[in-house]
């Protein structure tokens, strides 16, 4: 039996709506005592740690709007749409369907048995998932339901505002001409929470000049963050050694990780700076 906080949980009720509207109405009705749930892999580990389990679980398993994947046009640009209930392993295994940065991010999360249940929507909704920096670096957009309307918004706005809207899907640009990188530091080689995760994308022209630079960082105890100053520093330039040194300093200034029981903020800054600089150097010089 799962636990509610430190006490044995015996009365959690599972509600299984079949539409977005039903799901939203149930959340409105039960408020803070209810949570949406899809794969539930991370939520269950939280409950095992002693976090309170809600009295009501609103399963999204039967909500068709959050299922499947496809192609969308957004402002004339082609995007791949991933329904919130797409599992991380589906993303990991279907290299021909999804952008390689997404596939690489999924590969770095947990292990196959967890990835077979864990969903992209859940990874985003928990606020610290390792898909988030990849999606930030890709300029993804997200489709949400706010109780009245289904609407698109920039992915970064959704993350920054800690939106409580119901995630329907995330849309990723199909542009595969950008260079990209994704790195995740853990306490062991695989299947542990991230200390620092970094992701980046950029175009590189014939003169080795960078454009459309996107850099994102996060960690299991660090809020996802875009490194706007660093992006501006690199935009339009062909990186030199001096500039890469300046980039290193700027990352250390701009990135604001937390200190937790395992790692200091200073250490995380250093890891992120080393990784981003080495990856930019590898891909652009």
């Amino acid at each position: 039996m799962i636990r509610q906080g430190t006490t044995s949980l015996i009365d959690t009720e599972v509600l299984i709506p079949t539409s977005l509207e039903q799901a939203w109405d149930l959340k409105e009705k039960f408020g803070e005592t209810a949570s949406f749930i899809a794969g539930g892999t991370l939520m269950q580990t939280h409950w095992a740690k002693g976090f309170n389990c809600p009295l009501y679980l609103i399963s999204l398993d039967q909500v068709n709007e959050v299922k499947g994947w496809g192609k969308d046009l957004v402002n004339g640009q082609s995007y791949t749409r991933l329904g919130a209930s797409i599992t991380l392993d589906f993303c990991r295994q279907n290299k021909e369907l999804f952008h390689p940065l997404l596939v690489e991010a999924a590969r770095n999360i947990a292990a196959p048995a967890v990835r077979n249940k864990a969903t992209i929507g859940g990874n985003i909704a928990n606020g610290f998932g390792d898909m988030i920096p990849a999606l930030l670096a890709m300029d993804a957009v997200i489709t949400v339901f706010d109780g009245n309307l289904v609407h698109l918004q920039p992915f970064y706005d959704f993350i920054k505002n800690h939106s409580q809207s119901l995630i329907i899907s995330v849309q990723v640009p199909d542009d595969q001409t950008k260079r990209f990188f994704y790195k995740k530091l853990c306490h062991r080689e695989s299947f542990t929470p991230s200390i620092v995760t970094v992701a980046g994308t950029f175009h590189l022209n014939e003169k080795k000049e960078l454009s459309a630079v996107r850099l994102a960082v996060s960690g299991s105890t660090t809020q996802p963050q875009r490194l706007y100053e660093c992006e501006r520093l690199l935009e339009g330039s062909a990186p030199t050694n001096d500039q890469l040194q300046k980039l290193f300093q700027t990352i250390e200034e701009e990135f604001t990780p937390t200190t937790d029981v395992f790692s200091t903020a200073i250490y995380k800054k250093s890891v992120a700076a080393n990784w981003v600089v080495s990856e930019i150097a590898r891909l652009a010089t």
Partner: protein
Amino acid sequence: MGMKEHAEIMTPPKMEISLTINGTNVVLQVPPTKRLVTILREELHLTGTKISCEVGRCGACAVQMNNQLVNSCLVMAYQANDTSIVTIEGLAGEELDPIQRAFLEEGGFQCGYCTPGMVMAVNALLATNPSPSDEQIQEALSGNLCRCTGYGGIIRAVQKVITNNNQAI
């Protein structure tokens, strides 16, 4: 939809779930949040599936749900409804499954506690990828912890199954 208003609940809410376990249809009345590993072990006495970390980290409770590897400690009863489950007890016929035999022959276990989960993970891997690379084997087993063998015998066992399968073709 919901079974009761919370204020009325005096006993654990239960739901009827119907699932296939190792080819046999089973119908149970269980709390919707009861874990599959508990159902398997305590209700159905299929104790080959082991319980250990209870948070999806060790893989000792791995089973296959609709042909996909899952940690049964992270599957709640309502999520198992209308699914097909295969546990370690469902692999062998009159003879051991070739993966089980390879684990025996190559020293793929010592205490054996992780072995059912390991075998289920290898079975899931080879079902979709009959000739995995070393890297793919490692990734497939990255959620299964063994604290006895150092993994050497396990990897040898997997490679032996692959070799035997290829020779049989």
